[in-house]
């Protein structure tokens, strides 16, 4: 039975821990022991189906699949049959007829991966759907936190910025809840989604009050491309109240790490000195993304049936 990774909420504590432990061993193999190619998924085909621009995530999935010896087909929507009017369903069925074992999908519609999972026989991995979810980003963030701080249980994680448009925030809140961390969301009221009070997280409007208590500070990009109207008076005003600058970093505990899922806007939500500073894990997150995606692909595709994920 093939299963899917559609939402961070699909992962039990056992599943999530298995992914993180597997990723840790894979990181050890590919980085310390410098094994650049494992035979594990030889003969399997992974399709990268990206309907939305993405460099980081697409490259990361491609590298992960290739390091496990899978064949990778990159299907970009621009310049393809999609621009000629083909539906998601027909695109998916075409790719499946070509023999794909897994589809990694990025789409601007929230829920596109769930629909895809109902159509195709192979595994579907959500690589970001609209403002909904981005589960592998949450997994690599959790992996980075565990790597840097040694644990997740009881960790105080503060996520700052455009929560409204952020699939990263939603997936992180869901996964970190499962893993036992305590999340606080900090944003201007206009950038919080309705119903945020039902999320398993605290909400605050005051960044300076939350920072000294945090073990992890995760800054999010303000997603202007998803904004039709003005959500705050000016970039400068936003930056002054919700940006992480050098003065704010001084309020942090010694061990606190600063994360950003990228792409970042330097000078807006995060100062350059902070992004390049010693606390920043931004480069680690990118490297860990490959290990975590290798783990997900191995656990979904490596055997006769998937070891993780949800059925659809």
């Amino acid at each position, binding site marked *: 039975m093939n299963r899917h990774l559609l939402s961070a909420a699909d992962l039990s504590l056992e599943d999530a821990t298995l992914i993180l432990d*597997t990723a840790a*061993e894979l990181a050890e193999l590919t980085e310390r022991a410098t094994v650049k190619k494992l035979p594990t998924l030889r003969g399997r085909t992974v399709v990268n189906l990206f309907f939305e621009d993405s460099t980081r995530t697409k490259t990361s999935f491609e590298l992960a699949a290739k390091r496990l010896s899978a064949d990778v087909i990159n299907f970009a929507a621009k310049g393809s049959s999609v621009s000629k009017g083909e539906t998601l369903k027909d695109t998916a069925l075409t790719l499946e007829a070509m023999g794909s074992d897994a589809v990694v999908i990025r789409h601007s519609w929230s829920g596109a991966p769930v629909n895809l999972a109902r159509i195709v026989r192979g595994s579907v991995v959500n690589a970001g759907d609209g403002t909904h979810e981005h589960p592998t980003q949450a997994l690599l963030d959790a992996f980075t936190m565990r790597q840097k701080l040694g644990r997740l249980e009881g960790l105080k994680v503060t996520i700052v910025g455009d929560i409204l448009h952020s699939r990263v925030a939603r997936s992180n809140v869901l996964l970190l809840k499962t893993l036992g961390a305590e999340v606080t969301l900090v944003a201007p009221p206009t950038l919080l989604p309705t119903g945020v009070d039902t999320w398993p997280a605290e909400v605050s409007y005051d960044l300076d009050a939350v920072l000294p208590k945090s073990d992890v500070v995760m800054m999010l990009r303000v997603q202007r491309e998803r904004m039709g109207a003005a959500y705050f008076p000016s970039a400068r005003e936003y930056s002054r109240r919700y940006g992480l600058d050098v003065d704010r970093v001084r309020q942090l505990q010694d061990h606190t790490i600063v994360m950003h899922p990228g792409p970042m806007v330097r000078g807006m939500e995060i100062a350059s000195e902070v992004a390049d500073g010693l606390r920043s894990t931004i480069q680690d997150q990118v490297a860990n993304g490959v290990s975590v995606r290798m783990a997900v692909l191995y656990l979904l595709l490596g055997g006769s049936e998937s070891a993780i994920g949800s059925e659809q």
Partner: protein
Amino acid sequence: MLDAPALSRVVDRMAHELLEKTGGGADVVLLGIPTRGTHLARRLAQRVQAFEGLTVPTGSLDVTLYRDDLRMKSPRALEETDVPADGVDGKLVVLVDDVLFSGRTVRAALDALADLGRPRAVQLAVLVDRGHRELPIRPDYVGKNIPTSLRETIHVQLSETDGADAVLLGPAAS
């Protein structure tokens, strides 16, 4: 089949044989196959240290991702791979496992080892050889030969993982 003192004597003998057969063990690297092979590799290294005062680099080699039966069951959790800092290039690598049965684990280990580097030579040490090889693989050091039927099971217990040392012959599987 073996109690704790007998198992200890067997490991002593294997360490002596290793020293003898490798001409003093100067360029030997011991790589155990998790989990019990790793513990056995460490024990062999401790004995060599005690007998000759020689520190043998010791590590762990997980073969899960190289197994030929991966496609036949649900993906399994990975075990630790920990290769000594000097690597395996030009070394005499001795693979260590608890039980030698079909030989498929050792085949996977040889593939995994080839991805790590190019040893001068590879040898195999096992605590128990229970027969029934399905591949042309033979051990260089054997703790104990235990002829078994295919329906029987061999349980190697080590104090590190199981609380006590013993080798048990299990009842024929029903």
